[in-house]
């Protein structure tokens, strides 16, 4: 095992997959000579050349569509959208083509491609540049949507995503790139993969289930650790996949803990947490001792000014309060 950053793991995994399969290639803005806006693709142009590390003009709709087209005839494009905020101009291609082509044409062709893109707030990038939006993708039949929370999962899921024959939205997070975690040494690596559609219990607990994904999983783990000291035992589930959603794992956990809180960074209304809460109350109704609570960010276009930004973003404090509220309900019920 080696301690590696999320960024570094992505970089290595891209290189490995490109070496493994000649059909895998990278496309995106500034991924070559500029090495990626967040340097995820650093060094790959030198290693693989411009044919396989293709800088694009600023034309997300065009090049995402082009990646879909290339995938339809068997290439395996891995597209970087600089940040998720810029994916919106390409959304029609994702919704109406990537997600539908396999089904709508009766299974005659498929779209084996990955779109990697980081989201998230907290960097003072303000309203247009601090969005999450993952719920939009999670809503679309035909897509697979993953949001790994640590370097180990990032490697395992990126491998699976690249080798998968369907379009996979691979959600990264600006605040995770420098985060570190254990992953096998490149030499010792057994080429492990992580299946799409399967959540992971990242920490076992008995009093309450915290459901989270991406960056918020680490916040959840911190809070769980802290509350352990106070005698509150939190089970932390990292969804890892938002579509398909592994409802079984969260339902089983809640059947054990009887309580749940969802922690997400996105806006609360119509967010990921809504689906989790709706599913849990539907499938584990008789097990719930308290409502499933949702901790999410304030529903405002994220302001630039630091104090406002911090006030808007969901975090550990709110999660803690929500957990206490849920756990304390014991005494009311």
């Amino acid at each position, binding site marked *: 095992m080696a301690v590696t950053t999320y960024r570094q793991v992505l970089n290595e995994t891209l290189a490995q997959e490109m070496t493994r399969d000649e059909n895998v*290639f990278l496309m995106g803005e500034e991924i070559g000579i500029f090495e990626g806006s967040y340097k995820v693709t650093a060094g790959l142009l030198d290693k693989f050349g411009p*044919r396989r590390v*293709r800088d*694009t*003009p600023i*034309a997300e*709709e*065009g*090049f*995402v*569509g*082009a*990646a*879909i*087209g*290339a*995938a*339809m*005839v*068997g*290439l395996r494009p891995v597209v970087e959208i600089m940040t998720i905020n810029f994916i919106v101009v390409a959304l*029609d*291609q994702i919704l*109406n*083509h990537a997600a539908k*082509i*396999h*089904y*709508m*044409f*009766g*299974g*005659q*062709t*498929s*779209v*084996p491609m990955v779109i990697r893109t980081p989201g998230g707030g907290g960097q003072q990038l303000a309203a247009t540049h601090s969005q999450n939006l993952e719920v939009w993708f999670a809503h679309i*039949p*035909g897509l*697979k949507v993953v949001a790994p929370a640590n370097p180990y999962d990032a490697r395992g899921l990126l491998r699976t995503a690249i080798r*998968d*024959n*369907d379009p996979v939205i691979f959600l990264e997070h600006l605040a995770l790139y420098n985060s570190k975690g254990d992953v096998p040494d490149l030499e010792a690596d057994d080429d492990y993969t992580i*299946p*799409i*559609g*399967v959540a992971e219990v990242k920490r076992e607990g008995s009093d309450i289930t915290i459901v989270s994904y991406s960056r918020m999983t680490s916040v959840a783990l911190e809070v769980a650790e802290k509350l352990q000291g106070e005698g509150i035992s939190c089970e932390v589930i990292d969804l890892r*996949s938002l579509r*398909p*959603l*592994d*409802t*079984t794992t969260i339902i089983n956990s809640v059947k054990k803990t009887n309580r749940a809180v969802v922690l997400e960074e996105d806006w609360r209304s119509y967010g990921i947490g809504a689906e989790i809460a709706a599913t849990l109350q539907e499938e584990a109704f008789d097990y719930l001792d308290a409502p499933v609570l949702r901790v999410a960010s304030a529903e405002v276009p994220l302001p630039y000014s630091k104090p406002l930004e911090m006030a808007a973003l969901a975090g550990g404090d709110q999660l803690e309060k929500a957990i206490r509220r849920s756990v304390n309900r014991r005494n009311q019920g």
Partner: protein
Amino acid sequence: MSSGIGGKKSKVEHVNRGPLESRASREELLTYYREMLLIRRFEEKTAEMYKKAKIGGYCHLNLGEEATIVGAMATLEPRDYIFTNYREHGYVLARGSKPGNVMAELFGKQDGVSKGRGGSMHMFDVEKHFMGGYAIVGGQLPLATGVGLAISYRNEDAVVIAQMGDATTNIGAFHESLNLAKIWHLPVVFFVVNNHYGMGTTVEKASAQPELYRRAAAYDMYSERVDGNDVLAVRDAMRRAVRLAREDKEPSLIELVSNRLKGHSVVDPDKYRGADIKAQFAENDPILLLQNGLLAEGILSDAAIEEIELDVEREVDEAVDYADASPFPPVAELFDHIYATSVANGIPSAPVY
């Protein structure tokens, strides 16, 4: 090897009114004529079937555009690819898919080219490299560019042709696709069927540069405008473009000026176009133009025309019979083809109440 065309000059192609036989072989002429007639009769039958409610949804016909289709498709090898918009029945036929499978698709049947899932606007035939009808205006152009990219990536010899309507040149995807294709030197022929209207809006009203082939200048791209009612002129222009793509690995923009004989779709009563315009359509009907030429040059006799007519009608009737006989897709298959790689929890286990 170079096509010798070069990538920059834009020119207007004028209709060559020389004898047909000096421009194509007899065999070619007869093939084109028959294919055009098949599209005409197929589309007329489609309108009839729509009125009988055997076909639903939106349904856009190629009536009047037969020469653009047949001329364009005549330039392709089996290894080449074609992308179109939602007005694609004729292209699927010209590409060699069986009329029965095309009609079955319109009927929503299991033997349809898209297994009944796509309908009129979303036909696909992977074997024929017919890469799809697409119903979001302009949406097909990035995809076609991407297949061009794949060809280039693998250094293959194929080309892609990407069809669109005149009004499609005003949407962002057009701009982005042509730019990408040119900077990456992709073997894509973008061709516009300029039928003068995007639904009820004229080209002049919608496009600041109504001579659409001139828009190629923004991409330093080769372009031509040709008479889309002359199947040979279409073929020849498309041939130059295909050669440019195949040999020089350069994209191009070809404008085929044509007419849409009926409304935008089968339910459009076409009230916004006057009798005068419609009279012009009859005069410039590409099938009549070709038929008259073939008769005048003695390549076809009245009797031969009648024979072809009957043969085509029989083929179209058989298509209807085939489509009628084909079963609807079983409801049990509703969740098939969501994913190509199966995945845990892939089909939401939600109770279907």
